[in-house]
């Protein structure tokens, strides 16, 4: 796998695509508020509503990266505010380990980000999204798993040890 300098990856006009998992009680409501307060934020996020940040299984994040999204944002209620009492606390533990592991295998932590945004924090949501988008933009597109379609054997067969 070649390691290209970051600048080279930035093709012209490229905009990052980020999948955001938002807890329906806090962050999703927060995002709603952002809209109804007419605060603008970059249109690069696709929002997926989940019941709780605790619902976000690590595989959601892994698969999102595998599918080629440039970044992932998981956002839930602030500690202590979870509608289900402790969903965000256990989620926090999982994410702490996952984000370290992802960093260890070479996935830039800026690609997978976490935030607490309450239903009243419309401004914070806009700020978080803007920051995440800017950071992912600086990283360039997610080409970690790009399959070269002209290489008919995908990553493997020919180059794999026989």
């Amino acid at each position, binding site marked *: *796998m*070649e*390691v290209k300098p970051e600048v080279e990856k930035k093709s012209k006009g490229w905009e990052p695509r980020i999948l955001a998992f938002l807890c329906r009680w806090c962050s999703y409501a927060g995002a709603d508020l952002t809209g109804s307060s007419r605060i603008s934020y970059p249109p690069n996020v696709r929002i997926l509503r989940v019941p709780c940040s605790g619902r976000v299984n*690590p*595989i959601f994040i*892994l*698969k999102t990266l*595998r599918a080629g999204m440039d970044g992932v944002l998981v956002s839930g209620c602030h*500690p*202590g505010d979870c509608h289900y009492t*402790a969903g965000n*606390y*256990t989620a*926090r*533990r*999982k*994410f*702490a*380990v*996952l*984000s*370290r*592991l*992802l*960093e*260890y*295998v*070479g*996935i*830039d*932590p800026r690609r997978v*980000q*976490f*935030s*607490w945004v309450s239903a009243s924090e419309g401004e914070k949501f806009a700020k*978080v999204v803007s*920051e995440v988008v800017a950071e992912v933009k600086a990283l360039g597109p997610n080409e*970690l*798993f790009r*399959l070269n379609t002209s290489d008919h054997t*995908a*990553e*493997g067969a020919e*180059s*794999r*040890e026989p």
Partner: protein
Amino acid sequence: MPEKIEKELIGIVSRLFDEGRIHHFLGYGKGTVKFKTTPLIARNQEDLRELWLEDFCAPNLTLYLKDIKGQVGLLVKGCDSRSLVSLIKEGQVRREDLYVVGLPCPGQIDPGKVAGALGCESEELEEITRRGPEMVVRVNGQEKTLPKSLALMDKCLNCPYPKPLIFDSLLPGEYVAPVPGATPTEDELCRRPVPEKWAFWAEQFRRCLRCYACRNVCPACFCPRCIVEENMPQWVSPLATMGDNFVFHLLRLMHVAGTCTSCGECQRVCPMGIPLMKLNEKMTDDLRELFGYVAGVDLDRPFPFRTYRQEDPDDFIR
């Protein structure tokens, strides 16, 4: 291994079968290739004739508790007993169904490491024996000696739990770390920049064949049906592309976090030589650092992902 221990073991197990205390005994049998023993699943007294103890007792027998239910006796090394603790905690086995015989372990030999230290092929190794603090290796007809630290599996050197944490009887012998005080070799990969880490791991994931030996040999992977086999929805494609292999390995790692005791079986059996222990150790280090959790050492502390503290680290969250 001295005959005395073997006699003692056969005595214990025979009695267990006699008394009807167990239906199966998990031990070791003589391997058919160099530097390997084979798991022995004894169903009666007669099968015990194949029981064999020697320097190579690497397989973690707790693996078979997935399949073999009911009253089971088994041999455990110190490290294997941690898997047992994990399994009991997970409700996969009941302590009262088990009869646990502790095995003194002098550290497991890693033939690949020996070959590396001697600059030869592991196929060329003819014999590896222990002589006091040293290992004697015969290569291409010549005898060479090595310090233990260059011959034993890294995880064994300063073994933190040489004595089984749970047992019903202990075979006689020394329950001490083979190289006490040995400092673990630092994973220098941790210090490299992120793109270099990816370069390393992408190459490892690319080579994975998805033979699932790592998963199937893992005592902590006890799900009757693995998520990678589900296809509605299909979370992980069965195609062994680098990307899907990445998802598989990371997901497995997250699933065994808290249960994995770094027994090292996954790496030992990997036919492609993928350094899976690096991942496991990174994960266990993280759990220790973040939550002070060490897998398989106590029956009381809840699993790290099933509990929380308000003051858990959250510096990574915006």
